[in-house]
């Protein structure tokens, strides 16, 4: 899995590419942890490059939501692919996380 960041008006956009499952979740989780511990708590996960997330990926997203919200921030999801959206919907994540069609809308939601 490849993960990169970019800053956008005080919001950090995280771009994971690949699948988030038991083999990659630890790397993704560590990446988020580092951002939060360095004070970045307003995050947008641009999931356009994520073709799959398993239960391990869901746990990372929930952990990220807890960690950021504990510091008055949030993680918001953008550009979620259909297959990933299906998993998010089935597991109830669409009601506990905010999803946006594109990254710009997700960034703007923090304003």
């Amino acid at each position, binding site marked *: 899995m490849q993960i990169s960041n970019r800053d956008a008006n005080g919001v950090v956009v995280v771009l994971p590419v690949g699948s988030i499952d038991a*083999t990659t979740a630890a790397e993704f989780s560590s990446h988020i942890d580092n951002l939060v511990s360095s004070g970045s708590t307003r995050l947008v996960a641009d999931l356009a490059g994520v073709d799959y997330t*398993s239960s391990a990926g869901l746990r990372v997203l929930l952990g990220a939501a807890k960690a950021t919200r504990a510091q008055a921030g949030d993680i918001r999801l953008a550009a979620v692919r259909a297959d990933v959206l299906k*998993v998010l919907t*089935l597991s109830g*994540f669409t009601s506990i996380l905010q999803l946006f069609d594109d990254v710009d809308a997700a960034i703007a939601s923090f304003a």
Partner: protein
Amino acid sequence: MRPAVSTRPRVTLVIGSGGVKCAAAIGLWSVLTEAGIAVDSVVGCSGGSLYGAAVAGGWSAEKMRSLSESLWTDDVMQGYRENLKASRDGSLRFNDRSGLVDDTVLNQNLERIYGDLQFADLDLPLKLVATDLYRGDKVILSQGSVRQAIRASIAIPIIFPPWEIDGRLLTDGGASDPLPVDVAIQDGADIIIAMGFTLSYRTRMRSITAVQEQLTSIYTNNILNATYAFHNLAHHAEIFPVIPELDEQVSMFDVDKIPAVIEKGAAATREQLPHITRLLQSAG
């Protein structure tokens, strides 16, 4: 000398409730078999019990297809209309052992398909889920007669009479745990391949039974979503959901749609296959 400890992940197949849609499990099993993916145990609920038992018994896909045709015969719903009418005019007194369907044909069909097959005879460990009609809790069936356990697990409330096993009156497993991934987790599964189905909603309701069926669908779908969400987050097992996308509404006894349902099950499994394979390879 100590025996070598296997590091291979334990894989469990879970087939949830969904009536005729559960035939999609035939497509799933065909794809997994072709890909050489072995499972260590099987869990089934309601309609998923029919196919879970077949997988655990080592049945071929062709034999599973004939299972569907042999079970959902034209006369399996015998008595429904008459009993429904009688329940309305008061001539049928409904009680805890009643169903609108006379289950004679269903029981005969199950006997013809599964005979005296015992859990102990199966190639793989199998657990089937039913619901205690009086206590409301999930009941896991894993010993004795497979046919009896299936009969209890598929006892659709109000439609089929409940079934008694060991002094407990049991009804459809979907009433307590429509996609029982928790049973697989309890058994120590590392990887769970979970085929689940949401129940279709009606677009109009013009009778009390239609409203009742709609409410059952709503309850069941919400139980499925809530339990699936919880088990995804509360445990460390890796769960691969396989959710067939059916183009048209498939009601409980749309037997003519089974070939299309099987293909949808295969297609949904093929979508997950690269992810399952990658995880198995990385773990193995």
